[in-house]
């Protein structure tokens, strides 16, 4: 019936069928509001309307919904399918299967594949499907098996193929693409290392202070700082197991993150964010990522401009490699000379996406992730990306937000008997915290005395070294100009930790199980 009306309208309005997008998705009806046709998306308003009117299900499937908090406000029929119930069933667009067994997941891909093969999830997806078309799925991580399952369930994966993503994710490959695109990396050599002597030989020109990274790895797990033979032997086994490692000169640098989206109209670039790295009050991993800050004056104008320019160039190079959509780059800013070096590429949404998609520019235009969904939709669009990039580069577009990823940093293991709820928490003048109200969006935190807390470890979960306790997102900054945690950050960390209570495991057998759970791959990283 709808199709008939559409055809009739087209005839009445004098459009030939060739005028409209040939592959319009259900729900993306070319008839926008009954009066005009929208054969091609030309403005940001068109994009907004297109997604608000969306009828075809869009899913973000992951351990938690942290990375894409709030996207459901922009996209009709958007649902999160998660393993961890951060919201205690209070959030309508979050689906968590009820029947779960404690499992040692090896990776986020592993969690996603478990979810997609779970009967409750399949029933949920099928109950919302339109025949063979079950909608679109986005992931933080996925592999070839995920792709096969999605195909069977009728889900389109809104990302380039896993194989390509995996190739792009390789740190060594990143250096090569950067070199090709004119985006320099920290002085480095790529080599196979079999002994300390070999390392010294290949890295002669880089000096004595070295940083070694393996091709794949995350947040401080596979970054080794080596300035002497003893340092080397601590990590020799991991280094020598690799067929090639990236050996860098150690520079006095600050970490930064920037997110972008490679579209057919060009690469859209978000703002440069600082990174919180390796704070002992937040993470037990040396060099481990533990949050971000976004504010207009993050680094000098020249550094920001350079990073944005490099990101655009890198995005265009990615498109040439066949990659499109959302990606994140880490830049290392040399504090001694202001040089901007390419750190690593994450070809996906990341932990920083929760800030990129929250700030003022995202709300005055559209969140960056919507460009990604648009790129993977069947709709035809022609947007002036340069104009958007210029607007987003303006300091007034960037309001100030920060996030802290709080892990358990002690070596102790216990069972949680108390955990803070997800929602808005308020800090009193004396630094004490109290739950204020439930909300699912960081925007609900109105000023710096309030913070949106996403609870990850809950009552009944094991608390072990490295376990993610939760994530705090708040307005304003959490570090000072020397990149040290400020007093407010410290008070929040202390306040949130104080909300947790655990029961120690007296029984040595239970403790052993808990420890092996924590050590044996159970401590998957959710970000």
């Amino acid at each position, binding site marked *: 019936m709808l199709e008939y009306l559409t055809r009739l309208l087209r005839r009445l309005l004098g459009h030939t069928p060739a005028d409209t997008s040939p592959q319009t998705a259900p729900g993306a009806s070319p008839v926008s509001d009954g009066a005009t046709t929208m054969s091609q998306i030309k403005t940001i308003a068109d994009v907004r309307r297109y997604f608000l009117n969306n009828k075809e299900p869009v899913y973000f499937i992951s351990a938690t919904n942290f990375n894409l908090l709030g996207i459901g406000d922009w996209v009709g029929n958007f649902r999160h399918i998660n393993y961890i119930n951060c919201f205690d069933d209070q959030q309508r667009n979050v689906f968590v299967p009820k029947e779960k067994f404690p499992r040692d997941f090896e990776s986020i891909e592993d969690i996603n594949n478990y979810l997609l093969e779970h*009967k409750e999830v399949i029933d949920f997806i099928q109950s919302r499907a339109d025949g063979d078309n079950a909608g679109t799925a986005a992931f933080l991580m996925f592999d070839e098996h995920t792709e096969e399952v999605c195909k069977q369930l009728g889900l389109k994966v809104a990302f380039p193929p896993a194989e390509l993503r995996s190739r792009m994710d390789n740190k060594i490959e990143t250096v090569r693409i950067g070199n090709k695109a004119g985006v320099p990396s920290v002085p480095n050599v790529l080599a196979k290392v079999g002994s300390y002597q070999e390392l010294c030989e290949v890295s002669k020109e880089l000096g004595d202070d070295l940083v070694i990274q393996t091709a794949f790895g995350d947040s401080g797990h596979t970054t080794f700082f080596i300035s002497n033979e003893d340092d080397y032997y601590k990590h020799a086994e991991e280094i020598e197991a690799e067929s090639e490692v990236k050996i860098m000169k150690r520079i006095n640098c600050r970490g930064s993150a920037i997110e972008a989206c490679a579209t057919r109209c060009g690469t859209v670039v978000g703002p440069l964010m600082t990174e919180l790295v390796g704070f002992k009050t937040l993470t037990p991993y040396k060099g481990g990522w533990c949050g971000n800050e976004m504010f207009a004056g993050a680094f000098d104008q020249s550094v920001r401009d350079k990073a944005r320019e490099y990101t655009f160039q890198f995005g265009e190079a990615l498109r040439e490699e066949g990659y499109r959509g959302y990606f994140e780059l880490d830049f290392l800013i040399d504090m001694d000379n202001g040089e901007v070096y390419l750190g690593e590429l994450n070809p996906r949404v990341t932990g920083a996406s929760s800030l990129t998609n929250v700030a003022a520019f995202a709300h005055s235009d559209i969140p960056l992730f919507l460009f990604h969904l648009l790129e993977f939709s069947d709709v035809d669009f022609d947007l002036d990306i340069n104009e958007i990039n210029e607007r987003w580069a303006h300091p007034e577009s960037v309001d100030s937000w920060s996030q802290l990823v709080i892990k358990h940093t002690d070596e102790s293991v216990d069972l949680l008997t108390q955990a803070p709820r997800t929602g808005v928490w308020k800090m009193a003048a004396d630094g004490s915290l109290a739950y204020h109200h439930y909300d699912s969006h960081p925007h609900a935190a109105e000023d710096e005395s309030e913070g949106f807390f996403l609870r990850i470890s809950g009552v009944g979960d094991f608390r072990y070294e490295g376990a993610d306790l939760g994530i705090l997102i708040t307005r304003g900054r959490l570090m000072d100009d020397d990149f040290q945690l400020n007093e407010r950050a410290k008070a929040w960390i202390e306040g949130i930790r104080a909300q947790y209570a655990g029961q120690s495991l007296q029984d040595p057998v239970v403790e052993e199980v808990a420890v092996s759970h924590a050590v044996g791959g159970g401590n998957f990283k959710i970000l």
Partner: protein
Amino acid sequence: MDKMLDFRTVREETAGPRWQALFEYHWPAYEQWYLSEGERERPGYLACYNALRQHMPELLDTYRTLCKLAGGSDLAARFLSLYQPPPYITGCSQAVLASPSSTMLARNYDYPPELCEGTILYTHWNERRVIAMTDCLWGVLDGMNDRGLAVSLAFGGRKAVGQGFGAPIILRYLLEFCDTVPEASEVLARIPTHMAYNITVADSAGRYVTAMIAPDRRASIRRVPVATNHQKKIEWYAHALASETLIRERQLSILVDDEDTTEERLIAAFSSPPLFRHDYRRGLGTVYTAIYRPCSGRAQFHWPGLNLDLSFDHFPEERITVRYGVRGLNHG
């Protein structure tokens, strides 16, 4: 010391509240068993569904119905697929006696009584009416359909475990969708099993075969009327000794090869050693004797001193309590 088991006859043509009640009654024990090696050892729901869809697609509608009755949960659905269940073993002897005028499949089921459901289910889920002793809530240990096909399973006495289905669901599939021994043979050659089983099939035309199926080799399907607990040569000596598989096979072979063996004589043989076994302590005692006559659609269940006669036209709902003791077996 004595063990007791209630046998129940349950008639429900379309799966509904009665089957649901059976599920609810037995599920706690099955759940524990299903999780015995850890949840992760069992395949995910999608893999189970895909395996059924690939190998027994005609069974999917029934499977969906039962999953819904079971509450729609992930774990129950995985269990009900019987795809890659935890390994398990049984005893059992079975033999076919076929003459131009009648076919009879008789068997003893040797197993721990406390692990037997004791449900004799009369169903009409698809095109055929089926009477069967159930296992895993809808799987079949032995049974027949109203088109004249009778089936029975015995453990194959080998330790091999691989990718495939628990045999009871394969037997269910045979009874729901096959009419003759040639049709059943084709199915038995094709469907993967997760352990070694000897499946004996007989039809009303007097045909019979025993299929030795296993996860690690092609099915051997031959016109053999008897089966106990080994496949060709003995591989698992401890099991063969404990279950006395060779002695039982020899006894059955002599009986069915003897032209003077009548149905009554064969049935009587199942009631005494070596076929009837009292080894309840080690879980290898005879739990019941079943006799199927696919030509007339009659099924009999025997315990010492007690018979239960059932047919497609006469299927009273009853409950029989059987006591398995060291000195023998009583009903009461």
